[in-house]
């Protein structure tokens, strides 16, 4: 169902998008402020994906670069619109709607900002159903949409077009070079497509999901309810369906390094109770990739692994993971469209060279203690 979104919903979306960021995706707080400033007391039209015309020209817009740079060098404000106009000029078509490339992190907000500035509607769907570290890790790519042509924009009004045909890897590599020259952060438009292609390849209603997850966390805290149970209720009636509490404990070790421009590392969580010696190990590359309890995999990409503050339920990013933090780790199953052979080739364990097979979180955790079943 389509609806109008005002600034009142941005707090919930921000919190939900941080959760769907699975540790990465950049801080939605800045995105929320951007949309709040641009929107004022107006609203943005959010289009249900099933209500978009087949021949509509759909443009995904996003921010790419280092989240830490994004916290310091804020946008001038014209870049996200400039990049939309640049891709329109290059393709020779006018956008009918914008769409998020990822519903996790700050990129849930960038299309809303463009919409607030241009009056365009935003489609309630995205290409990741979460956040991923690389541009080609999208359902759009997995199901045959080409990333090129791609536009990038910086704060000085400059734009660049990259067209590598069907080679998305090379597009990503060139785009990272341009992003570096732009100061480590750029606004981009890519994977332009028709309304019909969008419906075939996107994860549907993920803005709504973000808002509902954020609202569930807010209300759970207000009512002193278990935040994990509240999230599980929301997930249960979406295509994600399954939510499992994987572990609750304290971070006892963190190891980080930079590899190929990514923040990679591991965090170890130990159980609170002195009697319980089990541990969870979390592997991350900007986003959380694998969770293992005592050496046994309990959740792996593309299923979502989220770390929540044990007291408040607030999502914690990989950059925010600190020794001694008390946290609950949860796993959320991805929709079926993200678990097919093509999808797993694009962003399953093998795409991250993890050496483990994908198995759904609901299978990996079947019959184990600590499983959170949705309460009626």
């Amino acid at each position, binding site marked *: 169902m389509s609806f109008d979104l005002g600034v009142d919903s941005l707090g919930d979306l921000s919190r939900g998008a941080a959760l769907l960021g699975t540790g990465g995706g950049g801080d939605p707080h800045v995105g929320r402020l951007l949309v709040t400033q641009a929107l004022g007391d107006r609203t943005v039209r959010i289009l249900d994906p099933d209500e978009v015309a087949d021949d509509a020209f759909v443009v995904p817009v996003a921010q790419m670069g280092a989240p830490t740079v994004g916290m310091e*060098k804020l946008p001038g404000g014209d870049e996200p619109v400039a990049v939309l106009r640049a891709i329109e000029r290059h393709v020779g078509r006018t956008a009918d709607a914008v769409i998020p490339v990822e519903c996790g992190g700050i990129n849930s907000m960038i299309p809303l900002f463009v919409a607030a500035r241009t009056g365009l509607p935003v489609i309630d769907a995205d290409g990741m159903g979460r956040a991923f570290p690389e541009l080609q890790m999208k359902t759009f790519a997995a199901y045959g949409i080409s990333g090129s042509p791609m536009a990038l924009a910086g704060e000085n009004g400059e734009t660049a077009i990259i067209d590598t045909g069907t080679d998305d890897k090379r597009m990503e590599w060139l785009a990272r070079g341009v992003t570096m020259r732009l100061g480590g952060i750029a606004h981009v438009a890519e994977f332009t497509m028709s309304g019909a292609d969008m419906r075939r390849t996107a994860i549907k209603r993920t803005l709504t999901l973000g808002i509902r997850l954020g609202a569930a966390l807010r209300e759970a805290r207000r009512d002193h309810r278990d935040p994990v149970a509240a999230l599980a209720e929301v997930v249960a009636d979406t295509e994600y369906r399954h939510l499992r509490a994987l572990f609750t404990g304290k971070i006892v070790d963190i190891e980080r390094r930079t590899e190929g421009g990514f923040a990679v590392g591991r965090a170890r969580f130990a159980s609170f109770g002195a009697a319980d010696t089990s541990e969870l190990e979390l592997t991350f590359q900007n986003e959380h990739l694998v969770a293992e309890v005592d050496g046994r995999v309990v959740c792996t990409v593309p299923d979502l692994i989220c770390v929540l503050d044990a007291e408040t339920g607030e999502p914690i990013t990989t950059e925010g993971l600190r020794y001694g933090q008390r946290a609950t780790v949860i796993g959320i199953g991805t929709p079926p469209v993200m678990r097919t052979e093509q999808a797993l080739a694009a962003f399953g364990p093998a795409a991250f060279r993890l050496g483990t097979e994908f198995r759904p979180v609901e299978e990996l955790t079947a019959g184990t203690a600590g499983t959170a079943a949705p309460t009626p």
Partner: protein
Amino acid sequence: MRIGIDVGGTNTDVALVTGGSVLAAVKTSTQDDVTDGIMAALNELQQQHPFDPAAVKAVMIGTTHFINALVEHRRLAPTAAIRLGLPATAALPPLVDWPAPLAAALGGHGYLCHGGHEFDGRAISELDEDELKRTVEDIAARGARSIAITSVFSPVTAEFEQRAAEVVGAMLPDAAISLSHEIGRMGLLERENATIVNASLRELAVDIVDGLAAAIEGHGIAAPLYLSQNDGTLMDVDFARRYPVATFASGPTNSMRGAAYLSGLADCAVVDVGGTTSDIGIVQAGFPREATNDVSVAGVRTNFRMPDVLSLGIGGGSRVRPDGGTDGGPVVGPDSVGFRLGSEALVFGGPTMTATDVAVAAGRAEIGDPSRVAGMDRDLVGGVLAQIAAAVTDGVERMRVSAEPLPIVAVGGGSVLLPDRLDDGAALVRPDNFPVANAVGAAIAQVGGEVDRVFSIEPGRRSAVLDDAKQEAVDRAVRAGALPDTVRVVDVDEVPLAYLPGNATRIRVKAVGELFTAP
């Protein structure tokens, strides 16, 4: 001999400390006039334990004046914020995320100018001095007297903030100037917010610091005066006049450091039981473990370093409802009679049953008139104390970071509510002078130096870069007044910045040492 003073919202605690021991300590009521309050407390200390003012080598004060002024929107200076970063950052101008009444209370003037750097030190755009001068003219016309200057990536290079300060200083010689790279960390809005908050407190800081100095002098003490900072280290009065914002979390920090010192335990959990809450924190190597989330103060998002504290709604003034529980049993808190304990509690002839009444009935404390609670039901007393013990046991367990046994130190006036052993068998350490641990924490504070910047680490250069950062932190501690031989690095944290080649890494190093005092 040193004197530590903790000025809280309700109580002003004073401790006289020498060598390794506390000579005397007093608890007095906080007064509206800062000078009068400190004078009264020092007089009481002198009565309890006569001392020669000339023998006092240093006075350390922890105060909530500045954070309270911000929360209550009191005595804030008319402030202007200049940001250097155009054409970037214009989408979110200064003060964008402030509560409107607070922004209005300090004038709410924000300006965007050219300048700022990229993460690797390239300029976003050059500083435009003519633009800056026009901005300063407008600031002067609007009557702002305190100016916060924030440049993008100033933690990497402070060049533009320093040049802008010269321009502003030449045009407005009487204005107070606060530079963001001296105040906050990476994260533009949070650092800028902290800088604006600091700027708004600069005039009050001069008044308060002068008032504190007058009180000390009035007592014949010629020793230097220091204020305690969020991280448990000290700043001298000149620094305090320029950086009042650094005092914001000194209360819990001093309490935890004092507990560690009094108990002789450098690694411990601390439970500080006050009138309304029990605050649980972890001390590692003598310093409180820091919270990792961004902290909002008076509705303003900042990235100050604050100690990681778990607050439970249990204190000496907590209301006790004998049959308020779902099982018909007693319930303690979370509401408290607070500063009205002296009139509300049963032992003071009041109508309200409080945790203090239960402690008196159990024989753990002698406060007020014990006969008023002598007939209290034994099961009720046992039930309430068991509930408090269970809550504190659970809280300590949640804060612990390893299964290794961790000693637990109980301090604060309300800690008589706690048993000698928690439910998991862990013994509580109750050091002498536990009610004034916060003042003792102020008295023993050390001097620190810190580095927090983005470094570009070339292959094979990691340890050299880390060594440079450590040396810089040590040098800063020495410049701040630490005895060089005592300075050591207490914290190193590296975070690689995602997506950037060249191994851009944010490195934080903290070094501390003993304060050098004249013989």
